[in-house]
């Protein structure tokens, strides 16, 4: 399932979910914001079950799930209590959409064929809006967007995870850039982009000017006008304006932007400074994901992280919609000259 296809619809559904929640339990949103799991555990019409991560699985590959009979939120216990909170709220989002007919109906009304994708995205938007309400937090940052210090403050003041704070901050950037979370070795743990290619998870940024300076002192905050991002294939981004701040001595939150720099009066993008001349960036036409280093043996095209290659693109291009069943089907499913498919004809 591709995430991020319906950002506006998901956000609008999230607000509707919050309205339904407030109608059912007035004042509950504030309590969920403080400690979602403690609040949810007190509900008598909903069970919260914690599941240990079994040995042998990638950590938290399935962070949570929702079963509707009886309504149960299951949370795979992660080290971070805040992350558990996000998972609990995400699963609560499923509960609301599966028990309120207006919310459920909206999913099928907005995108009847991808209602599930919208439901998932709405759950994420709902959890994010509960933990980090835009209307309340936006006044705390400047008109050009957040400073690195603002993101650290947000983490300290809210119940949201570091990752969620990065996502919120990236959404507030006015120009192109990335808000990223690094460990104490300068390795990326998470990156939230805003109209910019983010560094890969687990990529080492310790050699970039901004992160190298931060690693040298292990405390405080840093600003550099000449930093960049190092991508997984060894290439460098164009020169960026950057700011980083330590939080609890174990993590760094950094912002790297091309233009509209929150901490500068005037900052223009520096053109032609990228280090990626050797390789053109490609975006998968199927899922908009970034390419990996794999190449398809059949079509010799790069294969994206979801496994799509030129074969899928060619197949997708050939498919056409049937006006009766609304499925996109291969040309072989239509008789020559027919617009409806063989099944519907």
């Amino acid at each position: 399932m591709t995430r991020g296809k319906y950002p506006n619809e998901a956000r609008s559904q999230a607000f509707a979910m919050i309205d339904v929640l407030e109608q059912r339990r007035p004042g509950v949103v504030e309590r969920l914001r403080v400690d979602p799991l403690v609040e949810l555990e007190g509900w008598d019409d909903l069970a919260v079950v914690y599941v240990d991560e079994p040995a042998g699985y990638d950590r938290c590959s399935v962070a949570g799930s929702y079963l509707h009979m009886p309504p149960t939120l299951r949370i795979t216990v992660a080290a971070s209590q805040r992350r558990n909170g996000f998972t609990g709220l995400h699963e609560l989002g499923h509960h609301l959409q599966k028990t309120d007919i207006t919310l459920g109906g909206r999913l099928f009304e907005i995108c009847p064929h991808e209602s599930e994708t919208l439901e998932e995205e709405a759950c994420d938007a709902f959890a994010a809006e509960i933990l980090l309400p835009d209307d309340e937090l936006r006044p705390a940052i400047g008109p050009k967007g957040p400073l690195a210090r603002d993101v650290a403050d947000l983490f300290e003041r809210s119940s949201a995870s570091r990752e969620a704070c990065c996502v919120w901050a990236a959404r507030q950037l006015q120009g192109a850039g990335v808000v990223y979370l690094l460990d104490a070795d300068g390795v990326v743990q998470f990156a939230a982009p805003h109209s910019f290619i983010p560094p890969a998870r687990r990529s080492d940024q310790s050699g970039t000017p901004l992160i190298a300076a931060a690693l040298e002192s292990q405390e405080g905050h840093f600003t550099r006008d000449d930093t960049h991002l190092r991508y997984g294939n060894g290439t460098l981004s164009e020169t960026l304006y950057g700011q980083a701040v330590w939080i609890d001595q174990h993590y760094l939150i950094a912002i790297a932007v091309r233009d509209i720099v929150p901490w500068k009066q005037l900052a223009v993008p520096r053109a032609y400074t990228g280090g990626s001349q050797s390789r053109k960036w490609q975006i998968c036409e199927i899922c908009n994901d970034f390419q990996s280093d794999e190449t398809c043996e059949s079509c010799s095209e790069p294969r994206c992280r979801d496994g799509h290659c030129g074969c899928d693109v060619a197949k997708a291009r050939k498919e056409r919609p049937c006006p009766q069943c609304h499925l996109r089907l291969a040309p072989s499913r239509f008789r020559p000259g027919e617009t409806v498919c063989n099944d519907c004809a």
Partner: protein
Amino acid sequence: MNDPTVSDRLLELASQARVPDVLTEAGRQARFGEPRSVQVRRGQVWRASWDDVSLLVLLLDVGDFDVTMTPVTLDPPAEDEHCLVLEPRGTAFGVPVTVWRGLQAELPVRVLDAVLDQWTDEFVNAADQRLEADADLPPRSRRGTPILSEFDQAAMVRAEILDDLDTLRGSPVLPIESEGRSTPSLVNVLADKFSFEGLVTALMPLGLTQAEVMDIVRGYKPMTPAQAFAVSESTGVDHDLVLQAVRPLPADLVAQVQHPRLRTVWREHAARDNTDEAAAREAGAYGVLAMAARQTGSGPPDWSRRIEQYLLGSRSEER
């Protein structure tokens, strides 16, 4: 010394017929680990079963959906000229074992029930007709003798094995997704007559929740004839078309759901829901598919984790 009484003699005979310790549940667990974590491998002897049919099989090749096997019998003594007969000391069974090499064939993994023994490569290679290992039979084994008459008991045993294999192969299958084949969803089938609120109104009187109606619309829950009739009545769309709007299951999910390690679970569910194993397995598979799961990272769905979480939910339901 007095002659033993009849009851003593019967007790003595019963103790001789006792199941060897290695074949008891505890013995098998000691050899192969927890039933939920057992791996299916070449060289294992499994009990294959479905309904009231049960057969021992030696596994020669293992795939996701099928195994290549050769049937094995213990009693009554029977063999044909293709058989390999092993002496009691060679296996865990403690009695002569007949390997019906001439009946080597494929069986669906879903009928494997309990692992009983693991044979040495020497025995397995000799039992594998494809390897043509007959020239050099291992010690403590011999080739079978031909069936001389169709009235011979061995001929009957052989025929029964063939019947059992047919029954096992005929065990209910789950619908599996295949590339290039698309199943129309209920949204497609109902087209301009689709209304979520209308479906909820039509199906709730039959005891369905909103969440279950959403699963039906998305093809995650097979409809009963009565439910399809209600949808058909409320929309005017043909009953048979409505019934077909169930999506097939991803192959990876089916491979995991029908793995022998979960058979006990589906049987427990069947007993709980007063249904049969096939229906319980199908309900479980679609339940896992329909379960809303928050999965981190990219890549295909983690069906193992989802099944685990689904089963945890089912257990909490029982409590």
